[in-house]
């Protein structure tokens, strides 16, 4: 296939653009893809996208997973907020909105594992406001491991202080949760 931009080179980049729900297919050479901004210089997306679409398409009912739903059914999965279906997600390799993550949740682990070296759970920064009481939970966890350490080292006086701090934090956490309801 010939590149639709320069009509000279072979089209090696095949994309589907969705803008305001309108789908357009694009077939261009690598040169024009860069030139037209379909492919960002610095970024990673392309090879990964290829990898992703390969992964999605090979996905049917998995013989290894008894709980997997029949193909038909998960095709009908549709995000209630933005309207993106699982099938569309699989084809473009992109999410439509935050709710998509919840909607397709069951199917995401294998994809994330593949892209992020086996990882499926976030272990980084928590936003100050949106993160809610996650900060408290993390702080409690940190204090608990400190407490174990202190007990092992027989630093009981210090340990008692840390234990009180944990109690304090747990109280804050419960108050927060009651308040939300």
């Amino acid at each position: 296939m010939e590149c639709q931009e320069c009509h000279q080179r072979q089209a090696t980049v095949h994309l589907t653009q969705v803008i305001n729900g309108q789908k357009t297919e694009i077939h261009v050479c690598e040169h024009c893809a860069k030139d037209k901004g379909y492919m960002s210089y610095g970024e990673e997306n392309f090879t990964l996208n290829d990898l992703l679409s390969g992964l999605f398409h090979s996905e049917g009912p998995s013989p290894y997973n008894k709980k997997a739903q029949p193909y038909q059914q998960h095709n009908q999965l549709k995000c209630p907020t933005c309207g993106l279906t699982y099938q569309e997600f699989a084809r473009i390799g992109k999410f439509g909105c935050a709710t998509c993550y919840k909607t397709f949740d069951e199917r995401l682990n294998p994809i994330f594992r593949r892209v992020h070296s086996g990882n499926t759970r976030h272990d980084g920064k928590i936003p100050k406001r949106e993160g809610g009481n996650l900060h408290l939970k993390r702080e409690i966890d940190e204090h608990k491991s400190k407490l174990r350490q202190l007990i092992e080292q027989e630093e009981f006086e210090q340990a008692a202080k840390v234990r009180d701090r944990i109690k304090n934090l747990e109280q804050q956490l419960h108050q927060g949760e009651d308040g939300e309801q």
Partner: protein
Amino acid sequence: MSLQQFMNEAISPWMKQDGPDSDIVLSSRIRLARNFSNSPFPLIASEEKLNKILNFFRENFKGQSFKNYENFELLEMSDLQSIEKRVLVEKHLISPHLAEKSQQSATLISQNEQVSVMVNEEDHIRIQLYFPGFQLDKALEQASQLDDWLEERIDYAFDEKRGYLTTCPTNVGTGMRASVMMHLPALSITQQINRMTPAINQLGLVVRGIYGEGSEAVGNIYQISNQITLGKSEEDIVEDLHSVVKQLIDQERRAREALLQRSGIQLEDRIFRSYGVLKHSRVIESKEAAKCLSDLRLGIDLGFIDHIPRTILNELMILTQPGFLQQYAKATLGPDERDIRRASLIRERLQLENED
């Protein structure tokens, strides 16, 4: 406008400074991808929703300052000419993707051009922060503070299990891409870099050229960045990248020494030939210019040439790209005209160093 004036305006202020290890590391960058929780991602959002986001930035951040990052200017893509957008891409202040999306997208740039916050790119928000030289830790710290500052007014799409939610599954979690731009001429000349790349990839890091197409690294300039964004903390990702870059710096220094010892005169010859080409050519393609600039820069680093500042590589790699050449010429130029303009701009630039 004189070349000196043009350059003063064209080169970002932070780029003129030297940073740690800046004989090898040109710059460090942190990029954070963020989205509003209550709006579809730009890929499928309606014009109306995207306008709302753009408006939010106009009302809340235009003209604001945060710490050293003062007087944020909101450049709206729909107001810019295509050459102006191209120039912003060449300065790495916006992505080609943003330049292409002319409607409802913008970038918020600090006066010192260290910070650029792209609005309605692939994600609603892409925060980019640059430091000269090898300063990843500092870049992360500052980017994170900027992120907190934005979050004071924006409800981010965040999930306890998946982290910061992004349009592309490759960015989810931290939403962070940390990268370092390196000049590795000796590892390239000796072809060692090709042998090292697979091992670096194994560590979840990506090595690529930033100028030119495909896998070749024009000007021997490489970008090393993290591929994984989920399951590791920002600090751990930066630490891993840091240690690999540190090793690359050591290897590059060792390769330079070995080259000097084994074939000093040939190396010196190569450097001065390239210097001669830059100084005298009348027509020069971007690839040849990049190769010669890389040699010149190596000559400066090794002390063969001492009257030219080392920032010349970065500076001229940027200024000799098509957008800048056309902006300087104030005209649309075909490829042949660009090669002529490129040669004369480089000659003029080197002339500036000989005057004093």
